[in-house]
């Protein structure tokens, strides 16, 4: 009688046993999915933060060779012989010129002469972010002038400043050694193009001693 009972139980396990296995399997699936979702959140955050540092297609890389001769160079139009990519989301009424800077050799002095057309200067660090913006309204005697430097270079300059004297130069700290100085001049009328290009390319950017 006992042997017969045992045989029946082996062939048809009680429903409670299956339920327990099902519950365990479900709990395991939920736990692994939760772990997967947590990993997904970490991967998402790390990817978003890593994109600016790893990107080779951003403006700072694309225009690295522009304006290295001491003055700003115009952003070339699409289909240019240098093979430079066009500027995305650019205003067709604005002339854009760029000075690529590298602070490893020392601070860079930016000097812009203002004219009749609105001029804006911005500093774009490598990896995204505008670290400084100024317009020709801030010009003193029709000249906009500032120095771009790293934190360490600024500390050196402050240490070298005369005791008790206020420095008159405008110092802008860049947290990356490389970046772009962007000069934008608005053409109010299509006939302003030549003046706008002259104004934008007239922005000087040379390593200061």
């Amino acid at each position, binding site marked *: 009688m006992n042997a017969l009972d045992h045989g029946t139980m082996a062939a048809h396990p009680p429903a409670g046993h299956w339920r327990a296995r099902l519950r365990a399997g479900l709990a*395991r699936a939920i736990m*692994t*999915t939760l*772990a*997967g*979702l*947590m*990993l*997904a*959140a*970490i*991967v*998402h955050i*790390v*990817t*978003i*933060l890593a*994109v*600016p540092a790893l*990107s080779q*297609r*951003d*403006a700072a890389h*694309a*225009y690295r060779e522009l304006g290295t001769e001491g003055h700003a160079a115009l952003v070339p139009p699409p289909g240019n012989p240098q093979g430079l*990519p*066009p*500027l*995305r*989301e*650019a*205003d*067709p*009424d*604005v002339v*854009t010129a760029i000075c690529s800077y590298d602070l490893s050799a020392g601070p860079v002095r930016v000097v812009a002469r203002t004219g009749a057309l*609105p001029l*804006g200067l*911005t500093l*774009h660090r490598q*990896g*995204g*972010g*505008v*670290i*400084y*913006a*100024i*317009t020709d*309204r801030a010009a003193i005697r029709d000249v906009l002038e500032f120095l771009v430097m790293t934190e360490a270079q600024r500390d050196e300059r402050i240490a070298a400043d005369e005791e008790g004297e206020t420095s008159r130069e405008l110092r802008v700290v860049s947290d990356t050694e490389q970046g*772009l100085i*962007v000069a*934008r001049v*608005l*053409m*109010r*009328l299509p006939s302003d193009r030549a003046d706008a290009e002259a104004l934008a390319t007239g922005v000087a950017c040379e390593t200061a001693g």
Partner: protein
Amino acid sequence: MRILDLAYILALGAGLGLGTAHWAVAGRPALGKIEVGAWAAWPRSGGRDVDPYMRAYLARGVHLPLGSGEGLELIAEHDDDGQALDGRCRYRLSGATPPARSWTIGITDGEGLPFRLPLERRSFTDSEIVRPEDGRMLIVAAATPEAGNWLPLPVSGRFQIRLRLYDTPISTQTGETRAANLPRIARLDCR
């Protein structure tokens, strides 16, 4: 079984993590977006405190956003009634523009590029438009010629209107700007 679990966790984590990251920065991110009427702006894209999503979006292409002190770009993808802008319709852009030293208004595709149209009129600056007696702005955007200030549209398909304000005080307080202070976009009729 443990190897299967681990593979599932890794596949889910990598796939979902990379997929959502790509989706989040494929276009302009929803984070940091400010909507005023039909217009949308990302005022923090031109500052030091740019959020990580906008920074990643900008780094994925050759972008040089306007600096916060330099100006502000506003983008409209739909009209005042919330309907998507379509080249088959005529639109009236009217009303006021916020205080700015200068502004431009232009038609672009979804990527921010001007359309290749037979007529070389992709945008207007504030100096170019003809103003009525009250000095307000009135522009008609249509695929067929219009009297007055006419912005040509593509024959069909979606487009964007981009308003760029240069040297404007509203770039730091865009969220407080009222829709009445920006141009209205009204659909006149459709083909």
